[in-house]
């Protein structure tokens, strides 16, 4: 079976700094792949390369059997690869509904206004923002803005969704709802690639995990394999007994 997304030997430099170096991985349809690593490991840069914000210096990216290495972000969305931002980027002076309508209008199906509004309303219900459709995006809480990011990306009807730390900054209740949402998204047939710092969340959600450190791929595998990998423990987790904490089931 061919993978939905195939990243091969991708590298990116900024001046003298190597942000991402020779990273390869792939995602199958219907899979959740977790991307973890310490701060500055190059996770967000990797996202930016995959969706075309940055152009890779080396390597190639194939999505749905098309070479998208040189595509711009808007072309990538039309193919069905949508993303959220770690630092939320709401379109402040537009309503919540309009924000999501933008996603539907310019997404994979390139809908007209009327159809896009319908999709947008449905997606808002799905992420639990249905009652806030007419609010200005700027007046949402941080949790609301995170959901808005997800809603806009979902409205594009993607085949693959890149989630960049959607759990960061949320309280435990909000985290639980968001995790539930991500599960539902996967169950609806959309593959997910997610960056996350909340280890317990990502361990329970992901089918597989890729670990980045200093721009390089350090490990890849099932969640429990990865946590027990000694390189990962040393480079990322720092001290060994954290493994017990993470894997302990209460």
């Amino acid at each position, binding site marked *: 079976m061919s993978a939905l997304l195939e990243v091969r030997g991708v590298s990116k430099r*900024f001046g003298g700094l190597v942000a991402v170096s020779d990273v390869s991985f792939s995602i199958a349809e219907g899979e959740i792949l977790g991307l973890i690593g310490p701060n500055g490991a190059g996770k*967000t*840069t990797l996202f*930016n390369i995959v969706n075309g914000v940055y152009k890779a210096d080396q390597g190639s990216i194939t999505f749905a059997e098309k070479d998208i290495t040189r595509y711009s972000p808007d072309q990538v969305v039309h193919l069905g690869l949508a993303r959220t931002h770690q630092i939320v980027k709401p379109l402040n002076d537009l309503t919540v509904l309009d924000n999501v309508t933008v996603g539907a209008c310019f997404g994979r199906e390139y809908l007209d206004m009327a159809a896009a509004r319908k999709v947008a309303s449905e997606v808002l219900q799905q992420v639990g923002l249905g009652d806030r459709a007419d609010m200005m995006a700027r007046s949402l809480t941080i949790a609301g803005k995170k959901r808005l990011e997800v809603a806009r990306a979902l409205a594009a009807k993607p085949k693959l969704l890149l989630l960049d730390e959607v759990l960061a900054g949320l309280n435990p209740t909000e985290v639980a709802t968001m995790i539930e949402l991500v599960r539902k998204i996967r169950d609806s047939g959309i593959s997910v690639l997610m960056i996350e710092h909340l280890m317990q969340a990502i361990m329970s959600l992901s089918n597989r995990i890729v670990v980045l450190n200093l721009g390089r791929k350090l490990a890849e595998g099932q969640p429990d394999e990865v946590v027990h990998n000694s390189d990962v423990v040393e480079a990322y987790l720092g001290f060994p007994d954290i493994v017990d904490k993470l894997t302990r089931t209460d």
Partner: protein
Amino acid sequence: MSGILASMIDGLLVGAVYGLAAMGLSLIWGVMDVINLTHGAMIALGMFCMYLLFAATGMNPYLLLLPTIGFGLVIGLVVYWMAVHWVVGRSMLMSLLSTFAVNMMVIGIGTAVWSTSPYNVNFVLPGITMGAYTFTGNHIAAAISAVVIALALQLFLYHTRTGKAIRAVADNRDAAELMGISSTAVLSIAFAIGIALACTSGALVSTLFPFTILSGAVYQLKSFVVTILAGLGKPFGALVAGVLLGLLEGVVTPFIAVSWIPLIEFGLFVVVLVAFPQGIFGKRATA
């Protein structure tokens, strides 16, 4: 000595003045992320400041640069508190429009007082003759003054407490505030210095060419070109780029009419912006 060489040397001398003007724009842009559209009006004010001081005292204009700098600092503070302080950190559109509004007011007042007819500062320093060509003393004195002021600014920025604070704020305003640097004080000082540089360069121009209240616009465009060439927040680079622009003008003026120059400069501006977006957007592009 060939005509083109003479024209190039003349261009170099005038270019130092362009560079000084651009330093003012570059400093403000780099430190507070505000594109100062009062720049042209302030250059024009500098011209008239010099004109009035010279008419009143009859002193050597290059000595009158000192009071002109003082005048520029005061005007700079006034403009800062009137239009800039309230929009620093808001969207760039707002600071563009607010400085632009001040520009309109200054030009409006200037037009009402001096009309748009040409003035000049009637002062001639003996020149240097080389073969068939003479370089006027004014050009040489203006270039030397520009370089001296630029060096003084460089020393100020790198070797005084206030100068270092300005650079710290330019680098990272939030971090500088955490270190206890009052960014309001620093921003207002930096803005005043930027305006003083614009006024001073206008004063120097007034000793070289006739001018009107609208003349500042021409030098504003040149300052933008130079600032973009040099890269943001590099005041000393602006001086070098200014000299280069002057040199370029010196090379082309023997061959084409002066009225084409804005077209060439604009072309250069766009080419530089489009060809080196990293140099210009580099500050923001790292994630």
